[in-house]
């Protein structure tokens, strides 16, 4: 028996060696390579490995079989630029927010690529413009930072990333950040993904407009002047600028830009095209894995894939992201695969945040974490150790502040940034009704506990963003952002 086993070990080794198991990675000792993939606007509930039954993400699901899947990961912002700045510094949005769409990272902070660079990593970012356009996003710590067309796809950025990878020094570890707006409005993607889940073979001009301008839809109506409105609360709107007030107040101009009804069927069409965009993003991710594997780089690389935020698809009458911080827009996929898929196939249900990615990757790389990070390392979960997760996840955006725990969510609306944040929370908590407070799945005792957590959290914040220089967004980029439905782009 012992001889037979030895034979099989020998035989398999010989056959494996002679057949080849695909290209192998260049031999290099030391810290692993790191690939961080950001799938913009990707809802967690669309991922098969997170329970979606519709087969939208076969490649992510295949990846999950070799990765650790965090089933309760939450983004800290619903704004792409802020979410990434927060993730790359392991700080909450309050601490990195500059302008409405241009985050600022203070000189006293360290970024993930900055620290990895100090530990000998080659660092590169290949992003798809928009909020990550180098005109407004921080490139600090990246050796090279290249952007494709604004609001582009992984289809645009993947070749850029592979080109860089092919020219990278094989003797040094790399940190590569790859980003695409594949699931971001507008959702229509090339054949066959554009209409794959819609039941349509063509779209009318009106349907095309509806799918292309979801940021203007609220309560079944498309508001042509949406970007000129300011949300004081969920139920109170007003023109946000003098220009907006004139535009709204002028009966002649207003009549020329009427509200338009978005039928239930068209709202369903929005969801169906979003699913097609998710499937397209999943394919691009699958192609990335295949091309990485073909280069022999998959098995010496830590691969992390995440969504920077979700997307409202009709929840509470809302589409896109503007006026709510619920699970639809903050619950995101987060999966981490260690080299060779070690310890893969596990699910971790403890609550985690995107700001936990930086301390995790620094620990994996053997780097000493800088002071001031708000995230915690998820490395114990990757090693299979018990990992309870955090008690509360916090998200901020558009004058909203939200705390989520296992029982539900408490959101305050209309709050400002520090130093008034604490006072605003207290004030908002005293105001009656849903205009200033939104809850999900909580009773009053849960809400009281969440409020306490929120107050405790506020006291941990610093506000170093005031030290940073705020970047002005170029007018041409602002126009593109508004075209994407970002009503607050200014």
């Amino acid at each position: 028996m012992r001889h037979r086993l030895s034979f099989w070990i020998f035989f398999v080794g010989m056959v494996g060696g002679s057949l080849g198991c695909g290209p192998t990675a260049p031999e290099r000792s030391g810290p692993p390579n790191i690939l961080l993939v950001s799938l913009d606007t990707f809802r967690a509930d669309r991922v098969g490995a997170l329970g979606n039954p519709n087969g939208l993400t076969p490649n992510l699901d295949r990846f999950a079989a070799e990765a650790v899947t965090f089933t309760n990961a939450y983004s800290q912002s619903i704004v792409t630029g802020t979410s990434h700045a927060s993730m790359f510094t392991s700080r909450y949005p309050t601490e990195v927010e500059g302008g409405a769409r241009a985050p600022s990272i203070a000189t006293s902070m360290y970024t993930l690529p900055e620290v990895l660079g100090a530990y000998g990593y080659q660092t590169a970012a290949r992003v798809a413009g928009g909020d990550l356009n180098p005109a407004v996003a921080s490139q600090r710590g990246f050796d090279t930072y290249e952007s494709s067309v604004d609001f582009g796809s992984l289809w645009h950025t993947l070749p850029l990333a592979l080109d860089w990878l092919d020219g990278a020094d094989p003797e040094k570890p790399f940190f590569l950040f790859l980003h695409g707006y594949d699931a971001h409005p507008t959702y229509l993607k090339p054949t066959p993904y554009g209409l794959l889940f819609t039941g349509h073979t063509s779209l009318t001009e009106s349907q095309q407009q509806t799918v292309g301008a979801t940021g203007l839809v609220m309560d079944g109506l498309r508001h042509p002047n949406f970007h000129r409105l300011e949300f004081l609360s969920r139920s109170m709107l007003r023109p946000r600028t003098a220009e907006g007030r004139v535009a709204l107040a002028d009966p002649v101009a207003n009549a020329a830009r009427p509200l338009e009804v978005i039928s239930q069927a068209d709202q369903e069409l929005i969801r169906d095209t979003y699913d097609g965009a998710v499937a397209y993003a999943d394919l691009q991710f699958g192609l990335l894995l295949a091309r990485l594997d073909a280069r022999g780089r998959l098995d010496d690389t830590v691969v992390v894939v995440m969504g920077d935020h979700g997307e409202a698809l009709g929840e509470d009458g809302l589409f896109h992201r503007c006026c709510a911080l619920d699970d639809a827009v903050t619950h995101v996929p987060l999966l981490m695969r260690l080299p060779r898929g070690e310890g893969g196939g596990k699910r971790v249900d403890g609550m985690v945040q995107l700001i936990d990615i930086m301390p995790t990757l620094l620990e994996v790389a053997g780097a000493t974490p800088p002071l001031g990070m708000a995230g915690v390392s998820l490395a114990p979960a990757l090693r299979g150790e018990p990992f309870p997760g955090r008690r509360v996840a916090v998200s901020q955006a558009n004058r909203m502040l939200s705390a989520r725990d296992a029982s539900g969510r408490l959101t305050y609306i209309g709050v400002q940034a520090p130093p008034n944040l604490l006072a605003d929370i207290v004030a908002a908590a005293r105001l009656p009704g849903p205009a200033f407070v939104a809850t999900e799945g909580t009773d009053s005792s849960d809400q009281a506990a969440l409020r306490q957590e929120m107050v405790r959290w506020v006291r941990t914040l610093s506000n170093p963003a005031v030290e940073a220089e705020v970047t002005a967004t170029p007018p041409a980029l602002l126009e593109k952002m508004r075209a994407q439905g970002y009503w607050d782009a200014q």
Partner: protein
Amino acid sequence: MMGLLWFLACGGPRFTEVAAIAPTLARLDTDKNGTVTEAEYVAVSFKGFSFAAVDTDSSGDLSAAELLTLVDRSNPADLTYPRPAPVVMRGQARQGPQKPHGASPAPRSAPSSGRGVHRSGEARMAALMILESLRAEVLAEVPGHGVPSHEELQAAADSGGINTAESRAVLLKLEAAADAVGADFPASLRAEKLAALPVAESDAPQRAPGAIGEGSGRRDRRADGGPPRSDPGRPDRGRPGTLR
């Protein structure tokens, strides 16, 4: 046997491009006979796109390699591949019954006027937003007498727009109050400006219960977090099949 040996030696199947796109191919194969025919492809492609341009080996079926080529060449920022056809197509799969020639126009407040434009609801919403905004500005200066109440604003908005007699009356009050406290007031809404415009007919009697403007904070919220159900109290804002 060789496959098993390879599996044992290499630790299982690798990530490949064909494996990445295989699930899409399987989804396109709606009759599950193992091939994707022209009919199956056309069912999910933008109308007017040629199957022949994709079926490069002219086999009549779409292979994984052909689908990969299609995806690789299709720029998502330009949905016109594989032929320069406009993405926006006239006609609609779920098109509803057409109005016969010579049919009388829809009533003024009907939701189907224009391309699904609910003019009455739009005007109400716009009027309410304008009036509430102006009122808030006046009150921000001084909470004084003469400022119209929310109920007055609501009633004015319910009349069907900012340019009705009811709304003009409220605007006049707001204008006077704004002038009294030195608050900003839009020139386009001042009485002399509005006087140059014809007064719109009030459509208050035609207003359906639950129309836009009635309780702007009202929402159909589902406990399960799903999309809102249709509200029988709301006017029909367009049905599936309505040509828009």
